[in-house]
């Protein structure tokens, strides 16, 4: 199986696989991650502030999303949206599902990080005359974000790999592209190992970005 022609196949496939990784997989993961983070911050803030009704809605959202498989959520949206008259391409649908799915998990991460900020920070903000939103923006969220950053980045790294599930709703991303190439050559295993290797490269780079990011965010002099 691993002979000269296999080696040739791997070399010629590599740019094709990488192309779909950079053109589809990464944008899908990064856009979904950014949207999910915005959603997570909003959902976490509603719970932190204890807004009535909205708070219950947020708990309901988290309950539904965390209680059902991502693959099932993809299917429901893929077949469900057209039924209610929304026709969209599968790439956009995948972004919607990934954002909403990850948002539920990251919301819990953000909520925990916000609750970990000592209540004295909020009180001190009030005492210098700031209002709730000003305190959130200047004090609570930056500190919570710093705490949540490693966990949020974890989510991004997970998401890069989970995007392969988008193949089930016809998104041609890196994994689907690999399957197509493998199907043409009937040489599956080496190509699947190759695509695994590309995922590994992506995640290694992201790990380095995380390290840089943590440095950039600083630790407010704690370990200087």
């Amino acid at each position, binding site marked *: 199986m691993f002979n000269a022609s296999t080696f040739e196949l791997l070399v010629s496939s590599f740019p094709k696989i990488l192309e779909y990784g950079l053109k589809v997989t990464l944008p899908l993961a990064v856009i979904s991650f950014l949207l999910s983070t915005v959603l997570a911050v909003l959902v976490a803030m509603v719970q932190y502030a204890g807004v009535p009704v909205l708070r219950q809605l947020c708990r309901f959202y988290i309950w539904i999303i965390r209680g059902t498989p991502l693959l099932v959520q993809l299917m429901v949206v893929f077949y469900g949206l057209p039924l209610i008259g929304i026709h969209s391409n599968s790439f956009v649908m995948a972004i919607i599902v990934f954002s909403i799915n990850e948002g539920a998990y990251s919301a819990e991460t953000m909520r925990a990080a916000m609750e970990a900020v*000592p209540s*004295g*920070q909020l*009180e*001190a*903000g*009030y*005492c*210098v*005359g*700031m*209002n709730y939103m*000003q305190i959130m923006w*200047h*004090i609570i969220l*930056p*500190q919570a974000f*710093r705490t949540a950053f490693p966990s949020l980045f974890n989510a991004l790294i997970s998401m890069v790999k989970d995007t392969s599930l988008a193949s089930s709703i016809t998104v041609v991303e890196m994994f689907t592209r690999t399957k197509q190439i493998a199907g043409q050559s009937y040489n599956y295993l080496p190509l699947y190992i190759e695509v695994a290797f590309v995922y590994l490269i992506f995640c290694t780079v992201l790990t380095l970005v995380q390290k840089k990011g943590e440095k950039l965010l600083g630790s*407010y*002099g*704690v370990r*200087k």
Partner: protein
Amino acid sequence: MALLEIKNIYKSFGENDVLKGVNIKVNKGDVVSVLGPSGSGKTTLLRCINFLEKADKGEFIFDGKSYDFSKISGKEIAEIRKKTGFVFQSYNLFANKTVLQNVTLGLTSARHIAKNEAEKKAMEVLKKVGMDTFKDYYPSQLSGGQQQRVAIARALATEPEIIYFDEPTSALDPQLTAEVLEVMRKLALDGMTMIVVTHEMGFARDVSSHVIFMADGNVVEEGSEKEFFENPKEERTREFLRITNKIVNG
């Protein structure tokens, strides 16, 4: 006319009645020390006065305007807080902000003062507490005494009409306590109106103009600093002074 007056304030946590109808009155320029054993309600009183705790009932008079503790609105609270300062036992400096930003934030964000003007004001008050050379440090890089001095500068920067101190030196060793008390002494000399919940008998004696002695959620005795220390009327006060004197003098 009194700058601040509290009439008949009540506060309970569940079954536990912490304030049972306390009255206090503070004139402009007064330095009022609130003394009393732990659990007497001193800190709760101060936190209720700045609405960090919601009092159950009572009247709150500030700057000639009267409010009902149980009915005061968020907007009114915000307006009053802009004229007051608060110094916490645990400093509560903003952990993600430098010393300078800690002081300017209340000016730039809450009062919409231009950044360069806010920084000028901040440096002025930081100089006053002797922390101007630390302006780019983060709170975690400072000692407790330094953090508390920055916290005082933060309260000063907004030019409040009154500053509340909640046991400002309780977390500090004697040397750091001395440096913080020195700053507070200077403020008193400058005519700043202050209410100081404290266990520092020396400070209460030397700096304050009035003393309030609390026990079990009531004001047991109050009066000028001289009357209180030299001629206490209540047995409970005499007992308290006897014990604290014993500790101070061995």
